[in-house]
């Protein structure tokens, strides 16, 4: 009896690990990067607690189970995380904020105009440069410099979604019912962590925002001016 129970527990854990291995981030991404140290899980950009600032959050290396797997996860010294800001409305980055690990810290550069746009980057070392020690599950380190705030480390994944059901919908296995009822549905990310980089930047360092791209392209009207922002991971060659 006890043995059966043990097998059931091991079986369940194995299935859970198998699921997590296959369902990686973005939140379900191409195999070239899925589960690697450059795999972006998610991206957030919002008005800060100080409303004159903007917060950028990138979650990287998602689906970390609490405990050893979370504790052993770390940022890659060869992977540059780059927050891109287009403040002219042409969908080309005018400013970047770069983040990369060296030792037990993350070094931040910018916001600064990059010397190159598109898929290749160099680190812009001759600009605002700040360092924050990487936090752990039990210790939080925050750095405040030049009006900016910096954080890097494992955090609870803020994303919520019934990912397993979505996979069945995408593959046609949930037709014609679709998603579950609230009683049947389950949040895949409820008990998972990811590595996070959080930066809060005064808007004065981001320049004036352009006309909202969805207004300038004629898709919607009466929108407030807005930066176009995205995050990339780039690996050292």
């Amino acid at each position, binding site marked *: 009896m006890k043995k059966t129970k043990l097998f059931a527990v091991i079986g369940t854990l194995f299935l859970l690990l198998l699921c997590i291995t296959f369902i990686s981030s973005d939140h379900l991404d191409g195999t070239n*990067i899925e589960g690697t140290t450059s795999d972006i899980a998610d991206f957030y950009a919002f008005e800060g607690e100080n409303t004159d600032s903007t917060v950028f*959050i990138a979650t990287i290396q998602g689906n970390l189970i609490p405990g050893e797997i979370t504790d052993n996860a770390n940022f890659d010294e060869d992977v540059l995380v780059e927050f891109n800001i287009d403040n002219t409305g042409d969908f080309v980055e005018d400013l970047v904020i770069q983040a990369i690990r060296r030792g037990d810290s993350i070094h931040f550069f910018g916001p600064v105009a990059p010397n190159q746009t598109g898929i290749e980057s160099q680190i812009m070392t001759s600009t605002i440069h700040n360092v924050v020690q990487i936090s752990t599950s039990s210790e939080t380190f925050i750095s405040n410099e030049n009006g900016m705030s910096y954080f890097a480390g494992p955090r609870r994944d803020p994303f919520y979604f019934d990912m397993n059901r979505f996979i069945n919908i995408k593959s046609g296995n949930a037709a014609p019912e679709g998603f579950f009822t609230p009683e049947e549905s389950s949040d895949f990310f409820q008990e998972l962590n990811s590595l996070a980089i959080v930066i809060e930047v005064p808007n004065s360092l981001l320049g004036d925002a352009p006309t909202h791209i*969805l207004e300038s392209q004629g898709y919607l009207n009466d929108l407030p001016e807005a930066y176009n922002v995205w995050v990339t991971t780039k690996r050292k060659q």
Partner: protein
Amino acid sequence: MKNIIFYTRKFSLLLLLAFNLLLFIQCVDDDDNGNVIYQETCDDGIQNGNEQGVDCGGEFCSPCDGSGINFEGTFVQEDIAGRPAVNMIFGFSDLAQNEYNVSSVSNRSTFQEPFEIALEAYHDIYALSLDIPIEELDYETNILNWNANVFTTVLSEYDALQVAPNAPTTYLDADENIFFTGRSLSDDVMDITLKLIFGGVNGNRFDGSNDTPQLTTDAIGQGNRDFSLSFPYLEPALTLD
């Protein structure tokens, strides 16, 4: 005579042994050129020797302010994220998803057509399962009055978050008339996205009522997550305790 030969042999053996030992004991100090100490202490992830921080400062390592750390090299894109879940929903093959991840935001026009095909494929799945001819069950203009072409153009060619510095952040709140001013932690971006794909012009086209599939919500909310925290805004990592 026998004894003399024996002792000579013994002496020769000792001499051979001594020469052999000399082969191993060299006086040239070519295994310690100064780099050994540097490498052992400046790259081991712990503060040791006379370092002032972890792998920095002191006699051998780079200064702790980062000024001597190597940041050189060319970095090439491996992943990218703008709006939530675009590649996850509209990338229908590994190849397509991998290509999207290494593409530049301003060079995505080739993705519009496959995205539109994907949009229709989601509808074909339901047509087939409901025994409806696939040409009779297509995407319908959504609550933003975007037809399939406009919708997939926005998703492919303008895949970035628009964040407004002078307005409150909401990914999309049609009731409050706020559209695309950023993405906050509490925004239910998946329900919004599903509604834009499957909701039709009123947002309730496939909402599970009247025997329709339930496709406009995954029925998952933020649960017990706390999105009211100050910087860094995210909850601490979950632990096993």
